[in-house]
């Protein structure tokens, strides 16, 4: 079914159309939620909340961009809210002011699979993980991240730099071990 038609049917609150829309976007959106959380059940909780918002606010989608991009934005915001309100993550999300850390210029080749890479990102401390996801993957600027998380732009930058260093280190180690046959792909 054409996406516009699907959207129209969803706006009429037709359950079949809603199910189709969900089936189309849910796997990729769970991938996003997965990167922001520490467990799959948490990711599914975020996904559920996100899709409820999608269906109840679908009339707010103006059609000026991709529907997928709009849903993605909702998922990211839902994930951030989840992190802020959930007891498990709230404490880890508190950011200490850090001295500005220069971003390394290392650019290792990422030979890992998507899920392996996502798993490594999830191993980062929650603050690093969130900022890395927002900046490196979602493409938000540090100023935007600062306002989203209620921190200073400098903190966002330094957290990102540290997260990047840590992640590159882990990617290199993981890639080496993978090449030497210690780890198998899942």
């Amino acid at each position, binding site marked *: 079914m054409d996406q516009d038609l699907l959207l129209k049917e969803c706006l009429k609150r037709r359950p079949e159309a809603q199910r189709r829309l969900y089936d189309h976007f849910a796997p990729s959106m*769970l991938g996003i939620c997965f990167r922001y959380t520490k467990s799959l059940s948490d990711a599914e909780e975020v996904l*559920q909340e996100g*899709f409820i918002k999608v*269906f109840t606010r679908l009339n707010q989608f103006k059609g000026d961009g991709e529907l997928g991009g709009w849903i993605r934005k909702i998922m990211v915001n839902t994930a951030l809210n989840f992190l802020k309100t959930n007891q498990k993550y709230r404490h880890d999300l508190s950011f200490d002011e850090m001295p500005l850390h220069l971003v390394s210029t290392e650019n290792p080749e990422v030979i890992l*699979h*998507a899920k392996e*890479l996502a798993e490594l990102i999830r191993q980062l401390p929650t603050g690093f993980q969130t900022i890395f996801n927002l900046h490196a993957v979602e493409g938000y600027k540090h100023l935007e991240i600062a306002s989203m998380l209620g921190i200073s732009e400098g903190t966002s930058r330094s957290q990102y730099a540290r997260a990047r260093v840590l992640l590159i280190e882990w990617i290199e180690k993981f890639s080496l071990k993978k090449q030497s046959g210690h780890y198998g792909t899942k």
Partner: protein
Amino acid sequence: MEQNNFEKNVQHKLDELKIPPSDSVWTNVEIQIGKKEKDRRIIFMLFFILILLTGGFWFLNSPENNPYENKQISSIKTKDAGKATPPGSISGAVNKQDSSFQKTKKIAGINQGNTYLKGFTQNNIKRFRPYSENHTGNKNIQKQINFIKQSLIKPNNNYSREAIKADSEISLDFENELNEKEYDIAEIKSKNESENIESSLQNRMSIDRFSKELKVQKTTRKLIKKTDTSAKKTSEKQSWILGITLSGGTSSIGNNSLGRNYPLADMNAGAPQGGGAYYYYTPSAIKNSAAFTAGILLEKNFSPKTKFSLGISYRYYSLVNKVGNKIDSILPAPSQYLYSSNNYYTSVNSLHSYRNNFHYLELPVSVKFQLNKNKRLPLFWNAGINISQLISSNALQFQSNPGLYYNDNSLINKTQFGLSTGLSATFFSKGKRAFNIGPYFYYGATKLANKGLYNKAHFTFIGLRTEILFQKK
């Protein structure tokens, strides 16, 4: 630039990440969406009902509808404004309506000139205090009790003096008798009276509280039922469709359903005819007036082209006639009607319009037959029967000699059977909310009354009927 390569690489890799969610996620999403949709529907319905009720209330209470009652109220107000009301007392209007209150005034007056009675009345207050203090729920009744207490305790209460002076002669005689040292009889009488007042107040309080509790219980039961059924509804496919209905038009009696103006001959109404002991007055013609129905319905498909529906509605019909000036005193009333009459209007100088309101609770049952094959705009012919019960009415009856209008609802048949028919076109029949609209006709098969002004008359209603059906798709 090189730095961006890593980010782009990561971004590209992670865009490929797709994890199929478990089935429970969609189930929960579906339930939550349904709940939100239901909440929206309930809010919409409540809002609609609120608008209807507000509109109905405003319509029924607007000054244009009953200029007489307004005049009467304003005259009472001006009378009351002249009177000095003591601080802390409740309004004169309440005093006028409450006969037990007048009794209290009398007792207060008796106490003024008689300190002997003070003792036992104060004891009575002490006796009743725990009850009144424990039951603080009804503030108005509490106020009344406090006022009674004040008037009983204070011997020099100016208000009580004025009240007893302004009151009937019976209380003055009673006071005189007391002054003639018939203390024992007076004591018993006063004691009985005060006990009666207190007990009547207690009864009223308990009745009020009981009815309130009953209402709360009923509402709770309804809510529990609602939640129970809503839980069932999610699991079962429902074949009944819930809807709301609203009809507006004109109600009439007799054949002249659409006529709005008086016939010329009727301009003589109100003038005495005949002669000597045989003179009589004729009543003015009864004019058609506004009517509406509002309610909820359940609809079910019998076959692809036949639908069955039942529901519950509030029905308001009105008729207008011309009456003369209101007679405040009941003295000129014919004795045979004295027992049931409370409003009297003269038929002489029938210059004022009086709206006779009829409020019914109605149970309509109807069948719809589709007339065309158009699925986008189906046309239906409706036919049904209605059973309705009169809730209240202010309709006037007429006495030709001496030419009086009066209110006596015992002459009206309270339960009515009616037949209805109409046509309707359904818009948005494929959507979530189907909208039916079309002309509607109702004929009251039961006579409105078997005697009196509405003798053998039948109600008719012509108007436009709308229905909103909340279809499950």
